[in-house]
């Protein structure tokens, strides 16, 4: 394993799940749980003649950020595109259960100690959603994780980090949307139906998935930040994600929970108003939306550095 200092400089986009898991918490604080040595691999893939991984494509464990125990889920896109199968999903759920136990123990020690050492679940997404080889188990896993996120509400934060090669798509796009806070880099991509599937279903005229610039304009970090689907946009380094995570955890829980995009009637109204707006302005491209929200030179946005973009961007009010 590369040393922690070097990991901070490393591109989050290029990093493996294990590098991300180690790098987003404090130095040498990460302990992997249910790791490759435990050989929890998919029982379904061998039946289909497919290769397995001993971690089933997800790194799970616990580390520290300051005084906060941080329960980490980090998906590995290099294994079946980070798709979620039965074991992969069970490991995710297990991490939430550990976080609940830690929460209960800390809560028993009193409110002050709890606030100071409030646990968090952090998910570094890199996935296309359900693993089709074990689709029913994978779907069930999605529902269970959703359930866990709801169980965590009012207790401790669930934070999404999105900036890896595969992005975050399919059912896991819903899961990410259900978290409290989403931190992305501009290389991160977030959506429900993946670009290739949209093209397949709706035709190339509707969405040309090989037009990578179009894909980024529609699902990439900058667009999601303008739309407020993403709460914070950071540079593409593990260190930048860690810094953003650390400063988020310094906020009181109520502040973090305020970043949620779903979960109240007011937020439902806001989403519905947005749907109405889209019918009204009939955007042909994300650039139309950016311009509508006050970004005069919308065409220049993809070429801007993250720093320049953050300095000048106008977001959805």
């Amino acid at each position: 394993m590369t040393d922690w200092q070097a990991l901070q400089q490393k591109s989050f986009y290029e990093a493996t799940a294990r590098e991300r898991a180690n790098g987003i918490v404090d130095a040498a604080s990460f302990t992997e749980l249910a790791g490759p040595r435990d050989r929890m691999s998919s029982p379904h893939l061998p039946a289909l003649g497919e290769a397995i991984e001993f971690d089933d494509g997800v790194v799970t464990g616990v580390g520290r950020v300051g005084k906060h125990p941080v329960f980490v889920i980090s998906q590995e896109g290099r294994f079946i595109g980070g798709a979620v199968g039965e074991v992969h999903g069970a490991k995710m759920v297990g991490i939430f259960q550990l976080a609940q136990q830690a929460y209960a123990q800390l809560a028993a020690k009193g409110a002050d100690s709890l606030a100071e050492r409030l646990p968090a679940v952090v998910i570094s997404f890199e996935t296309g959603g359900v693993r089709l080889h074990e689709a029913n188990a994978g779907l069930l896993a999605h529902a269970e994780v959703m359930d866990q996120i709801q169980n965590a509400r009012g207790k401790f934060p669930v934070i999404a980090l999105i900036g890896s090669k595969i992005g975050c798509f399919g059912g896991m796009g819903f899961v990410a949307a259900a978290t409290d806070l989403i931190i992305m880099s501009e290389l991160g991509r977030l959506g429900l139906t993946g670009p290739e599937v949209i093209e397949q279903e709706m035709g190339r005229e509707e969405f040309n998935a090989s037009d990578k610039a179009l894909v980024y304009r529609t699902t990439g970090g900058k667009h999601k930040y303008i739309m407020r689907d993403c709460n914070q946009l950071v540079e593409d380094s593990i260190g930048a994600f860690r810094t953003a995570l650390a400063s988020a955890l310094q906020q009181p829980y109520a502040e973090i929970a305020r970043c949620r995009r779903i979960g109240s009637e007011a937020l439902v109204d806001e989403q519905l108003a947005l749907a109405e707006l889209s019918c009204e302005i009939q955007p042909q491209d994300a650039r139309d939306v950016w311009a509508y929200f006050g970004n005069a030179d919308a065409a220049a946005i993809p070429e801007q550095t993250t720093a320049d973009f953050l300095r000048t961007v106008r977001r959805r009010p």
Partner: protein
Amino acid sequence: MITEESVSWDSLLQDTRARLAAAAPYVQAGKQVAAADAVKLLEAVLRPGDKVNLEGDNQKQADFLAGCLCRVDPAQVHDLHMVQSVLSLDRHLDLFDKGIAKKLDFSFSGPQAGRLAEYVRAGKLEIGAIHTYLELYGRYFIDLTPRVALVAAYSADRNGNLYTGANTEDTPVIVEATKFKQGIVIVQVNEIVDQVPRVDIPADWVDFIIQSPQPFYIEPLFTRDPALITDAQILRAMMVIKGIYAEYGLQRLNHGIGFDTAAIELLLPTYGEELGLKGKICSYFALNPHPTLIPAIESGWVRSVCCFGGEVGMEEYVKARPDVFFIGPDGTMRSNRCLAQTAGHYALDIFIGGTLQIDRYGNSSTATATRIAGFGGAPNMGCDARGRRHATSGWLRCGEEYGLQQEMTGGLPRGKRLVVQLQETFREKMTPGFVEELDAVQLAKNAGLALPPVMIYSDDLTHIVTEEGIAYLHKCADMQERMAAIRAVAGYTDIGLQEDPQETAALRKRGIFKTAEDLGIDPARANRSLLAAKNMRELVHWSKGLYTPPARFHNW
């Protein structure tokens, strides 16, 4: 006895005149023909059995004219003999499906290789031969001269002067062969202008110009996204730079297409710089404008690049670096595949590229039993140019090391081109990169070819580089030794498993086989942090914003 009247010395010319007269009703002002009349024009000028060049280059495609040719009446126009370097569009094969064409002489068929093999089996298509580019161009002037050429240009003026610009490619050689044997030249152009930026083809070599409804299709064939380069490719690239480029001081090179050579290009400003090799290697290239070469150019490594074709998105960058690229008086690049291939054959010290299969003797091929892929230019660059008579140090050194030198020339000094194959012992889907017998042999039987399509013959191959190390094959004294050296680099393939460790140790002692460690390379350093650019966007930054990647590579 032949009478005076029966001898005609200008029958071709008279035939051409008759065809041009038949086309007259469709000609508007000057040489212009409306796109809507293009099919009728083709029916007027084509005769059954004609040799026809339908410009299909490695990159540029006369796609509109290809579509029109597919729509001619097969009762009227049939059994054409297509002579063209590249088969890349569906339409190129549709012609054979419809019975409009029957015979084919070509060089490369990458994207259509599967369908081509299928058509040969089904008897829809008869292959004359699979050529190298230079070989086919040569035959345009001997026995495969096109009667009619259908070519593509960026623009034409009203007289028919053509601008073919960065993607000039095959056009000059096709038009020259056709027109100077009284043939007919029809051009599709993206636009008709008052004045072309420069004259790439003069108007009197052109018979008809048609403004195409769409700009001609062009494939960004040589763009490789650095984000997809693997650590294994970086290791091979480090071995090449240190164990071959630096070892022989190679200054004049061609890089084949692929991620391995892209990795080499992206290591020059980092690893190459670290080894102090700037100015000592890689100064001159015969190469398409590879975007991955930008960092090396910007760091002052590259003095000159001669291009076979253009590359989509590189136009402005190339224009802004006239010291490096070949630029016309108008400021834009001109490529000429025929001349660049000549340069590639005679003026280079090394060819390096990848392949699909290498057999136990060192013959290699990209053909498989069900795909007729052809060669393109690789065999002309991937061979020892036997006519070469100028000396460079790397070329001489390779000749000195040549194990058969004494036997072949009695010890007279003669150099040797380095021909290097980069190979993974196992390729995608775990197919072995080393095999007992090339699929090309079976393909030749299946398709009734007189010659198995071998890309590079063993006697031309000097080096193989795999993750196991480098085999310096040319140093071997005989075939037995050569086969042992191949086994040494063949890893866990069936060929590699036949390795005799003692034999390999002996080869290692003599410098015929070297591992990364032998070369002083730490494999742990072979990772992506060594790349001068890790993604497309960093290439754009290196180019100072001059390179504009096509949409499919604009991944941000």
